[in-house]
């Protein structure tokens, strides 16, 4: 497949890439744009480690062909949520509640939780679980993650 020039709106900046249209967005982010916070966990959209926001909705970037995300949508990756020394309230809550072990699922968790709190600022525990249930954590940090999300919701 021939490569095309595409423009992506990532974390508020317009970025130019040259890519095959069916290249998964995940690898464009990681390899072409140097945004390695979004992780490869399964490549089949089942684990959530590759989650990004596209116009506020959670997508599995390993399953999004880059062309589908290059039509003016606003893409937000974990790098757009906060940075070291300038964490979002949710990231701060994850730190305070040790809501991780190895951290590999964490960017995906924060993306999904950010989308949840954006739509539902004070979710019940059941609503948190339902929204997060497709993000996997093999280390088993689930309860800590729930507690972090609840704390962030309460503080807001």
């Amino acid at each position, binding site marked *: 497949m021939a490569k095309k020039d595409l423009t992506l709106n990532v974390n508020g900046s317009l970025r130019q890439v040259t890519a095959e249209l069916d290249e998964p967005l995940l690898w464009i982010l990681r390899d072409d744009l140097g945004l390695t916070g979004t*992780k*490869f966990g399964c490549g089949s959209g*089942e684990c959530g480690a590759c989650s990004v926001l596209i116009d506020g909705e959670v997508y599995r970037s390993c399953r999004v062909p880059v062309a589908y995300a290059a039509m003016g949508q606003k893409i937000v990756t974990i790098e757009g949520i906060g940075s070291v020394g300038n964490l979002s309230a949710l990231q701060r809550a994850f*730190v*305070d509640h040790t809501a991780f072990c190895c951290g*590999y*699922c964490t960017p995906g968790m924060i993306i999904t939780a950010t989308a949840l709190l954006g739509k539902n600022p004070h979710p019940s525990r059941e609503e948190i679980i339902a929204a997060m249930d497709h993000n996997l954590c093999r280390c088993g940090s689930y309860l800590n993650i729930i507690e972090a999300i609840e704390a962030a919701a309460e503080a807001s």
Partner: protein
Amino acid sequence: MNLTRRQFIASLGSAGLFYAFRFTPGIGTQTGSFEAPLAPPDESVCLDTPLEIDYTDWIAFGPGDKVTIFTGRTELGQGLKTVLTAIVTQGLEISQENLTVVLGDTDLCPDDGVTSGSSSTQTVGWGFWLACLKIRGDVVIRASRFLSIPVEELEFRQGGVGLKGEANLLVNPAELGHGEVSFMDIDPKAEKSGKTYTDLKIPNVNAEAIVTGSLTYVGDIKKDGMLYAGWATPPYHTRLTTLKSADLSAVRALPGVKSAEVVQGMIAVIGERYSDVLKGLDLVQATWSVPSRPKEMPLEEARADATLIAVKEQQGDINAGLAASDLVVSETYTTQYIAHAQLETDISLAKMENGGDKVTVWVSTQYAAKAKELIAAYLKIPHSSVRVIAQPAGGAFGGKQANPVNPEAARLARLVKAPVKLIYSRKDQFQIRSHFKAAGIIEVTSGVSSAGKILARKVDFYQDVADGTKYTYDIPHVLVKAYRDTNWPISAAATRGTSYVQTCFATESHIDSLAHRLGIDPLEFRRKNILSQALVKVLDTCAEMIGYDNNDLEQDEGIGLGIIVHGAAQLGAAAAKVAVDRTSGKITVKHVCAAFDIGTVINQNTALVGLRGGIAWGIGFILSEEVKLNGHRVETEYFSQYKIPRFSDIPPIDIVFLDNYAPGTGPRGCGEMPVIPTLCAIANAIYNAVGVRFYSTPITPDKVKKALGSI
């Protein structure tokens, strides 16, 4: 061989003070007294001896206020870096900003063993604590000579030495050395620390990096000219088939594909981008030999072809014990293949250096020194030509002790003369790496007196390593044997929870079974037979937490118990409450209460999240996880097929720490302990809920519906 001490110190670029320490005679396994004094300040160990000495860890002072510690152990998410930071900053009274922790770099760090068995905090961690205390004293002696002030007038504080009673420091450790090394032997049993460790509950030191996605895993590293690589999956299990022919012309013709090679009977595709590799793999044409094994490969075959590989435990006279019993019960349990299923698949980045004379490999591993050995052996190059740098792992759980991805990446990098990042896909993780906790058949026979004392227990374990029955119950006649079919294609892996997960599922279910047959409450039956009072206390704590005697149980709800002793000195127990839905067959875990007697907790934040994670692992083992094989190949490919626990599978969890077994003797580790008691408690709770015992795991809704439908 390798870097000498002199070279190592020079590489740090500073004159300063260095300590190397190791444990003697051995952690937690031997007692003994220790008489050798600390090396006097002006003696030094020969600087031209090699850097690597077994079980040695390093502390370097300098330049200025900087302190650097070195260990070959690695960060797997268990919080090792946080534990070591907590220990050393407190032991030396220094700030985190002044401490650098170097993990798993084979050019800099010693080989102090594999990161496994929930042992690192207990050994390396506590070693650093005791070393810091010794160093405080040694530094004061040096300072006394340096300053010509009597030792009695000085004290170590805030990372340096000053006069007692005065606030300022006169000298810091780095100024007291000129690059010499003090070599210390530490006997943890003999050390009487004047300073008590206090858990200050510091936040995880990787926290900000993790939550911003800026912690660097292997896959996040990029090198100029780097290529991606992947393996073609054979249609049959790699150990059952050989490559007969391959046509890679279409693969090589693909733009973006740099190379397609047969490497030791496997087909590698190397491309500019990972998607080029995947596209190339789709075009591979190959024929593989058809396995001679039958397509269905039930575990019973393994039992038929198994030979004895070890007598794991023998005590008393099993036949006499059984003969003397009032009741003898035999049961057979079977367990499933378990995958590590860590979220970061096997991945390795290898780069040839110096025109091909050396190779640097960035790895995700539990054992950097072993990775170095494997790479050198596989490439047939000198050991000293290999540098392994361990990045934090995205989960390991026992599956990254000697992962082949590392030598494979190095081999491919040499082949294509470019840096190669080799990635195992999720399917590859199941079907090529194919390294699982082996499925097993466990036959348990116990003899009990009518009064409720277990007199004899015999365990025969097929297809894995049986263990973990010691130190738990007081049984005078014991015989535990492990059998294996050595032709079985699946290699048995260490997995979180230890190799005795299967045995304990069988023995703890069996304990409940005996209790019920005798008409004795399972808690009471355990109390009668448990070996140590400290373990009884742990169990009683759980029972009380869950309200064992006064829990309002609805129809088809039940509470069950499980206990574990890990090694000899990590004690754990769990109580679980479950609800069984007869229509759907679904088991809901409603509450887990767990208690652990593990000595000093170094960092409660990392301990608790790790213990909760271990409980999740227990839930997955007993209720849903299973790798499926069909005799010729592993069929499982995806997370949708291999069901690890999710948010909705986790109940409320209460955890309590106790310290009765050996108070004041430091930490004893805990990361994998909760797995066994949790899964056993759930299994026993299911029986108590519906009166049906399940002898095979996982206890899936289909199995439940089938069993209950027949009532």
